[in-house]
């Protein structure tokens, strides 16, 4: 799915990683993504997909993996196309 690939690509570019290293099961900690990075990545995603991620949608205390971000963006994108 393009959306998933795009999210992985954004995260890889942000952290200067090869895109093959960024998979849904990998944790933020493994990829060196701190809370500031995570918020900034959400902004990148908002710009790319034209979606609005509510500030409390992604609990950075609980979201631990790339997959958590992918799931959230997939849900928000689906809601937008339903609207």
């Amino acid at each position: 799915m393009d959306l998933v690939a795009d999210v992985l690509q954004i995260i890889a570019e942000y952290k200067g990683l090869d895109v093959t290293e960024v998979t849904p099961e990998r944790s933020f900690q493994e990829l060196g993504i701190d809370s500031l990075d995570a918020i900034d990545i959400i902004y990148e995603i908002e710009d790319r997909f034209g979606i609005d991620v509510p500030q409390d949608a992604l609990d950075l205390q609980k979201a631990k993996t790339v997959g958590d971000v992918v799931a959230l963006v997939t849900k928000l994108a689906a809601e937008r196309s339903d609207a």
Partner: protein
Amino acid sequence: MPSSSDGSARGGPVRAVVTGLGVVCAIGRNQAEFLGALREGRSGTSRITAYDPSWFNTQVGAEVRDLSFDPYLPVNEQRLLDRQSLLAIAAAAEAVADSGFDTTGEEDRCGVVMGTGMGPSVAHSEALAEVAVNHRKPRPTTIPKCMYNAPSGHLSMLYQCQGPSSMAVAACASSAVALAQALQMIRAGVADAFLTGGTESFPSYALMAAWDALPVMSKRNDAPETASRPFDQERDGFVMGEGAAVLVLESEAHARARGARIYGELAGVGLSSDAAHITRPQQRGPELALAKALADAGLNATDVDYINAHGTATPINDVVESRAIEAVFGPHAAKLMVSSTKSAHGHTIGAAGAIEAAATLLGLHHGFVPPTINFTAPDPECHLDYVPNQAREAPIRVGLSNSFAFGGHNVVLVLRRYDG
């Protein structure tokens, strides 16, 4: 390296020497280019490229061109830094390599003091636009980018300086204040070595528009290279610049113990405040700073060979500064060489004190005086030897560097050739 905060090699008061110089500005992306341009009297002024200046009265500036920050920081990390920090990192990398500075084993004895005038104005403007135009919260990375103190924070992390670190903010005197604070901390034994200097990015579009509303910049848009002409009768204001300079400043004992090459000594500072007007130059404050600087360095007026003037090229500054020099130096003023290197690299605001200290130190070290370029017709009210147009070979022993800022902050640095 042995720790040595207990006095100079001679057992007298602690002296501080400069062992590394890194410079980035419109006339040079490194020390060698900067030195060449000073010797050749090259201008770094051209039409502004950072944004469309066509609706401004002033359409010229002295920008840093063709400089990649990739050698200094991974591309994906650069987005967390405003240009003021990136310029500082480029200058610091050169200074550190130049000096062989290594903090390993004495991290807590090494510090950072930098200066900035207008701070991270580009990041501020972007955040404002995000709110005003897009009605969206700016990115959270705006906060670390918008910290005025970010350059010092990044340098402390990059070079593991675990002693004091901070930024000085005093408009056009910011980096001269930074050097003064570093010197005073070395003298006080607080630390043995500092990365010190200043950084200033070209103002954001919004800030430059505001500068353009203040009638202080040159409007010589048809001949940018000649726009900055300090002490010249035809001068019509300063040219906005950008850049950074970082000096490695160490106690003499520390530098000698590690066998470092020494460019010169920061022998004293004079600090004063006009306490009069927020923008209008005064004569009394600069006089006080000049006199205090000589006293701090234990020098007589006749010991001074050269003054790197504040020399902005505004009609009022250059007259007031010349009068202050005449008042303090008396008959010796006629023998002084006085130049403004802002004629070449523009007014780099918060980086000016450090860039001009670097120019003075290179003059001391290589035995020449950088010229005031674009000097064709002397102002009848400015009577000194302004070293017009051509660099002058001269064995200078003592050079001063003046920084007189909006806000009435005045700093004079005393730089002395180091003869051991």
